């Protein structure tokens, strides 16, 4: 039997540095390694000895694509530790800021990172030569997300306005309402995106997943909720470590998360969509139903369609929040210090992001634990690749390699996040 190698030494169109190396002996995969060679980054260690109020700014620096996710999970954890609750106005502003990040991140991924795979281009810039209107739509759609983050957070990357207990300054109602025309445009553009993406050809792959996401009785999950799964899990965020564990393997500078009772699981847009479909806003739900996208979605290549639905959702939700916004009486709540342990989670664009901190009586961090979405998805990505390769052995090396890359990008992996995290090699010599 002939031996083949699939080798991608530096995976493109993902955030951070990863690789894939696959060795095949005939039809048998002898080795598959989705590796992470991004340098280790020691955030949990840096946080020790820092004051609890520093966590949102420091943890934002884990990821330039989803800093709001880190800020939100960290403030949730700190407020849990201190036993404080924020007011409804602060809660609404947090959700609005998070809508901005989902729009920016999903817009980036759908149009600039993933659509080129479906249409056969090396990049969105190559794609723009034949699809100028679509690329321009995507860029503007993404930009409005950045505008939301900039208005609420001060800037799109590493926002400055988020603090434990709330915000430094609450925007005025007039400032926010000024965004409404752009948001209305964005909502229509997101619906157009759903139609565009629905016309793509999705490679065949159906898998049985354990989906995990936050869930909340009042809303589609974003900045708060309990942790649920399609296998019956329903737990408080504080119970995370009782059900999940991180393992360290040699090929990776990221930790792999698994369910303690065995196996990989799937976080991100597909998990949220499948577990919380009924909570989607009306136009998002209608857009999904119009293209026949209803739970359970189990072909990971359809994640681009789910992300587009979440774009509709995030715009619709942003409009709802802006229209109902009254500035909170105070931009933040008081923080009475105490020695305690706090847990926080939120739904980063890529999936569940868990933080845990131990604090001393002076408010200094004595221990920190951060579990990003990509390390939770890493084993699932490898399992997808095994099934995908076995079903597509007739493809040329070049086509099979590209298909594998596209499959990895289904998860919008953020490798910078996961190194606390990737090189693609396909070896079938």
């Amino acid at each position: 039997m002939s031996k083949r190698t699939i080798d991608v030494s530096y995976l493109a169109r993902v955030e951070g540095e990863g690789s894939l190396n696959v060795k095949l002996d005939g039809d048998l995969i002898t080795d598959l390694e989705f590796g992470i060679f991004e340098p280790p980054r020691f955030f949990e260690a840096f946080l020790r000895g820092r004051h609890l109020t520093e966590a949102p700014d420091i943890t934002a620096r884990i990821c330039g694509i989803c800093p709001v996710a880190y800020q939100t999970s960290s403030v949730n954890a700190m407020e849990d530790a201190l036993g404080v609750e924020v007011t409804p106005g602060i809660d609404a502003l947090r959700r609005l800021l998070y809508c901005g990040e989902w729009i920016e991140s999903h817009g980036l991924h759908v149009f600039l990172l993933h659509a080129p795979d479906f249409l056969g281009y090396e990049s969105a810039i190559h794609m723009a030569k034949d699809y100028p209107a679509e690329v321009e739509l995507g860029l503007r759609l993404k930009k409005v997300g950045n505008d939301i983050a900039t208005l609420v957070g001060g800037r799109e990357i590493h926002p400055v306005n988020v603090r434990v207990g709330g915000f430094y300054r609450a925007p005025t109602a007039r400032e926010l309402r000024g965004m409404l025309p752009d948001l209305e445009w964005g909502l229509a553009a997101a619906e157009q995106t759903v139609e565009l993406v629905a016309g793509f050809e999705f490679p065949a792959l159906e898998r049985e997943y354990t989906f995990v996401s936050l869930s909340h009785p009042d809303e589609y999950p974003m900045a708060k909720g309990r942790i649920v799964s399609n296998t019956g899990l329903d737990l408080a965020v504080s119970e995370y470590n009782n059900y999940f564990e991180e393992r360290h393997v040699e090929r990776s500078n990221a930790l792999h998360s698994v369910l303690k009772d065995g196996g990989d699981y799937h976080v991100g847009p597909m998990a949220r969509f499948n577990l919380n479909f009924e909570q989607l806003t009306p136009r998002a739900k209608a857009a999904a139903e119009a293209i026949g996208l209803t739970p359970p979605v189990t072909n990971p290549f359809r994640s681009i369609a789910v992300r587009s639905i979440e774009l509709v959702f995030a715009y619709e939700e942003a409009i709802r929040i802006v229209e109902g916004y009254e500035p909170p009486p105070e931009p933040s709540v008081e923080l009475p210090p105490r020695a305690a342990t706090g847990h926080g989670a939120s739904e980063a664009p890529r999936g569940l992001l868990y933080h845990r901190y131990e604090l001393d009586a002076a408010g200094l961090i004595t221990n920190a634990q951060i579990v990003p979405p990509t390390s939770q998805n890493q084993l699932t990505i490898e399992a997808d690749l095994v099934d995908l390769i076995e079903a597509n052995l007739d493809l040329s090396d070049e086509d099979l390699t590209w298909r594998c890359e596209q499959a990895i990008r289904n998860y919008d992996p953020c490798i910078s996040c996961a190194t606390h995290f990737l090189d693609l090699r396909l070896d079938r010599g």
Partner: protein
Amino acid sequence: MALPKLAVWKFASCDGCQLSLLDLEDELLAIAGSIHIANFVEASREVVPGPYQLSLVEGSITTPHDAERIQHVREESEFLITIGACATAGGIQSLRNWKDTKEFTSIVYATPAFIDTLETSTPISDHVAVDFELRGCPISKHQLLETVNAFLHKRRPNIPNYSVCVECKARFTTCVMVAQGIPCLGPVTQAGCGALCPAYNRGCYGCFGPMESPNMESIIHQWRELGVSEPELIRALRTYNGYAPDWRAASDELEDSLP
């Protein structure tokens, strides 16, 4: 005439600074029409071989492999610009420079033997010659655009090196340190962000690093007057630009004089 070739390189970083290029939504396609985006792995599968007329380098040097890789990047680059606090000053990763990295590895990773890392995080200029540096955590995308534009027109980028205070005055923000007693690093921090934090009612926390010849003695005196403790002062100076020489010297001196 062939367009000049641009490469974007990543070392230890959060990807935020190179994302700034993709965040130039209104200008991205025009940029792509003026310079050949030849090697930008975050955005394209296509990698056109060097040499490159312009290289943008993000991230700090933290592994033996990266210490070698930056040499090759330099060899392939006619003009090399560092983008952001990590590449320019060692970044948040340089917090390890004051600690025992082996201990850090055991805090984060169960099997430290798998991890290959250097004891220090150092700026690109510690390893190779750098032609221009852009500050910020993250960089200002407007400064990035100005710098690429200046490169294309063979002129020096118009990047001010005065302090954040000047930007506060220009946007009519009342001084948060004088009026509200909020500790602020603005007087010793280089401009570039547009004086964001004071406009959001908080003190500057130093994303753009030390301005030229900062008066550290004076800012430390002022912060003490406001009741800031010595450990708090040290922490404030050691964040995203803590390893930049002026701030490093000031925080080391404070630490040495702790009882």
